[in-house]
């Protein structure tokens, strides 16, 4: 059987397994909104760790990390992975745990419910809802586009004999086209989210996280063993590593100031609406402990092998010259090309399932979360809880999700090239809202006007810099600052946006009336006064 067809069959079996998992989870569905959106707060430490980790690791963790290391070298690990290890757990600890406490105490499902209550303002919800949805759309777009590309690359040749799916690029010829691959992935995720709700999503995430971690490590060993041309694994690793240029084994081509300011980007997890919802699924506050401790270690387990594969791929001779030229034009092909060349079709199919697992474990939470935001923050808030039944709200959530997915799918067909740059802009937007959630939890003096000013400052400065980057077309856009005696000082746009938010929020809060005593008593212990 043709290698592409074998890989396609393995992908199909994997997707069927996921659908079955969603169906099984639906057997435990009680029919209530609380169960559908928060799994009735039943998620224990292991499932919480796996679902949160799976949600924060996107296609970028496997495909993107390898391609970025191929382009930039080992610095990518420090810039994106070790920084996230520190900052993500920090956010789980200082934001997640506290938010969980309030969520359980006052019955919140979404961030906006918390902000409306804490800030005594309805308007803050009206302002945040479109901003959060707009920021999630590019995040969804990354997953939807990446899934289509991965399926096409890995199934190339499957239909070559039938003369179907011809492509000018021979690396894709006979492979399932992205518009079909992306549609199937969206469909599968929608079905298991619809059937299983949050419980199905958490189970699917845990299952998929195990799949992509195990298969990632197996593939790494298999590929590494084929690269050096020697007998033993150790000998092969030494041979290939010795051939990598110093531009990839050091960070000599990377700006130190940019590296430093990248630290702000992982703060985005504190404002991800889908993560907020995952936090609230926890059975108890102790369920968080495993996530806080293991998250940095899990990031290391996934990223280090990918970074090594990326730098080894730069060694001349790893790819045939014609393929090497194509890869230099599209580095996202590095991992799929290595898997196809250095492993068997069955391993290739399994790893493709692993990559899709990483993508889908983010998409499912995001799909569910936008549905929750729509029903809780718009329908229930403005129409009234008593006028729409639980079951009707679940259906409204599903309808809204389908509409958003249709928009994202349409955007994916436009073939936006700088999708990963778009991801950085999306994370920068969420990270810039970090001061608002932090102040809401720890600063008694934060007022509704202060939060609204901060949000508007974030949105305005984000849009100003985004259009300066030609709407993400300048992939490595940064702000260059002239400092006397310093050769190069560039910072990520997130720093400027973050500062605008912080200053607007603090100044406006200090000149406006403090929150009422009742609200302060509700959210702050007496000893904090």
């Amino acid at each position, binding site marked *: 059987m043709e290698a592409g067809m074998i890989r396609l069959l393995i992908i199909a079996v994997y997707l069927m397994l996921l659908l079955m998992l969603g169906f099984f989870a639906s057997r435990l569905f009680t029919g209530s909104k609380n169960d559908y959106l928060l799994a009735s707060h039943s998620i224990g430490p292991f499932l919480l760790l796996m679902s949160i980790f799976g949600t924060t690791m996107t296609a970028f963790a496997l495909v993107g990390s390898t391609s970025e290391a191929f382009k930039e070298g080992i610095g990518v690990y420090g810039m994106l992975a070790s920084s996230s*290890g*520190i900052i993500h757990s920090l956010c789980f600890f200082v934001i997640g745990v506290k938010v969980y406490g309030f969520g359980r105490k006052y019955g919140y499902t979404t961030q906006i419910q918390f902000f409306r209550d804490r800030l005594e303002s309805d308007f803050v919800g009206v302002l945040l809802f479109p901003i959060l949805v707009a920021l999630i759309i590019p995040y969804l777009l990354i997953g939807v586009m990446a899934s289509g590309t991965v399926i096409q690359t890995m199934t190339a040749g499957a239909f070559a004999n039938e003369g179907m799916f011809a492509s000018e690029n021979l690396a894709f010829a006979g492979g399932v086209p992205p518009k079909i691959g992306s549609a199937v992935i969206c469909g599968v995720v929608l079905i298991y989210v619809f059937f299983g709700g949050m419980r199905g999503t958490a189970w699917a995430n845990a299952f998929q996280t195990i799949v992509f971690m195990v298969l990632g490590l197996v593939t790494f060993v298999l590929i590494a063993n084929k690269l050096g041309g020697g007998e033993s694994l150790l000998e092969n690793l*030494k041979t290939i590593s010795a051939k990598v240029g110093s531009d990839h*084994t050091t960070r000599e081509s990377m700006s130190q100031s940019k590296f430093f300011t990248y630290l702000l980007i992982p703060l985005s997890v504190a404002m991800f609406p889908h993560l907020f919802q995952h936090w609230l699924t926890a059975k*108890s506050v102790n369920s968080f402990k495993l996530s*806080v401790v293991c998250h*940095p270690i899990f990031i290391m387990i996934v990223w280090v092998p990918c970074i090594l594969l990326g730098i080894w791929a730069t060694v001349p001779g790893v790819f045939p010259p014609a393929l090497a030229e194509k890869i230099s034009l599209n580095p996202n092909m590095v991992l799929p090309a290595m898997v196809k060349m250095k492993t068997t079709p069955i391993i290739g199919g399994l790893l493709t399932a692993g990559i899709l697992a990483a993508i889908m474990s983010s998409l499912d939470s995001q799909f569910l979360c936008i549905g929750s935001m729509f029903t809780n923050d718009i329908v229930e808030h403005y129409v009234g809880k008593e006028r729409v039944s639980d079951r009707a709200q679940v259906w409204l959530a599903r309808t809204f999700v389908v509409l958003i997915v249709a928009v994202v799918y349409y955007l994916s067909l436009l073939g936006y090239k700088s999708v990963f740059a778009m991801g950085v802009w999306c994370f920068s937007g969420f990270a810039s809202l970090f001061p608002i959630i932090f102040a809401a939890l720890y600063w008694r003096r934060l007022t509704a006007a202060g939060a609204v000013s901060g949000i508007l400052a974030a949105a305005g400065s984000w849009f100003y810099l985004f259009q300066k980057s030609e709407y993400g077309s300048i992939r490595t856009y940064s702000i260059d600052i002239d400092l006397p005696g310093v050769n190069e000082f560039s910072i990520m746009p997130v720093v400027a946006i973050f500062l605008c938010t912080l200053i607007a929020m603090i100044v406006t809060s200090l000149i406006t009336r403090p929150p009422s005593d009742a609200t302060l008593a509700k959210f702050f212990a007496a000893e904090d006064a």
Partner: protein
Amino acid sequence: MKYVIWTMVLILLIAHQDSWNWHDDTLVWGIVPIGLIYHACISLAAGFTWWLATLFIWPKELEANSDPALVNAAEVPVQESN
């Protein structure tokens, strides 16, 4: 202990900016670039630091508030409807 742990987090953030490894192309065990293994160690150190945080500065008051038995008893049961 609170101050010790938050100091450790601060040290991790400072250690993350390892300018001393910037141009060093040493391969540890002849395989892994020193800059990469250094940052992998930062990830392990982060795990260790957060483990200490869960041991010594975990919010005990939230632990009591989120006890499933207590919270479920206090929650208003969700009305199922068709």
